């Protein structure tokens, strides 16, 4: 945000993810809070941003295939051994 006056919905929505992460500075947080105090739609957008943010974080994992895991664990077993390729020093 660049100004110190009231903000509209577009500016409020643009900063919701940062608010969800607690990364807005104090002034921007206050301006957003003032907007949310009267804008029901942006309150809905905020609740949705929380869910969407959580989905992206918690529901995008990729399991390691068994054969890949076996090969990578074999790499780990060989780490820091003379044959494991560690560069001394």
């Amino acid at each position, binding site marked *: 945000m660049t100004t110190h006056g009231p903000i509209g919905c577009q500016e409020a929505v643009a900063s919701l993810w940062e608010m969800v992460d607690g990364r807005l500075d104090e002034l921007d947080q206050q301006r957003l809070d003032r907007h949310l105090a009267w804008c029901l739609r942006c309150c*809905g957008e905020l609740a*949705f941003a929380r869910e969407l*943010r959580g989905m*992206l*974080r918690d529901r*995008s994992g990729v*399991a390691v295939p068994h054969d890949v895991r076996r090969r990578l*664990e074999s790499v780990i077993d060989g780490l820091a051994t003379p044959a494991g390729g560690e*560069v001394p020093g």
Partner: protein
Amino acid sequence: MLGVDERTELQRLCRQELPGLYSLARRLGGAEPEELVQDTLERACRSFRTLRDRQAACKWLRTILTNVWRDRMRRDGRLPDQVPVEDEGDFSLYRTLEEEDPFPYSDTLHIDFLGGFSEHDVHVVLERLPLRYRAPLVLRYIEGFDATEVASLLDLPDGTVMSQLHRGRQRFERELWAYAVESGLVDDHATARDGTPA
């Protein structure tokens, strides 16, 4: 050469972080994930003594993997350095859901929409994003690096990363909607009224 205790600790940390490293490699995309993780493990071994705080091993290993990935993408000429950020238009998934109302009998429309996405679905949607959006989103919102750290990892100015994150969020929402329509997660009637999704 690492001592026995150091080696044991390194191996324990690597085993512990292996699933997360592989996931990150897959999410970043553009390179063979197994090779990325292997290079990461070997580089971590060479610099293990620079890791002062073992509690920070998770972030330390992810930083190494991202550096390995970035170097490889740059070597292959695939890193979109300072590409001007496209105007993705003003798209709000929240508003689109209200307007299209794909679950007319639901009292929790927005939550129900997100609930239809499996891990596989979310991963596919992420893969659809152009690299200039996917990498910042993954590093910022999944891996938890702050915007300045993301800029440093990607060798980009802070302002560029902030723009990419903003546009990337909108593009992610747009792709979620498009994917939901294509894969039948929402009823056809939601798009029949105005043709293709926004």
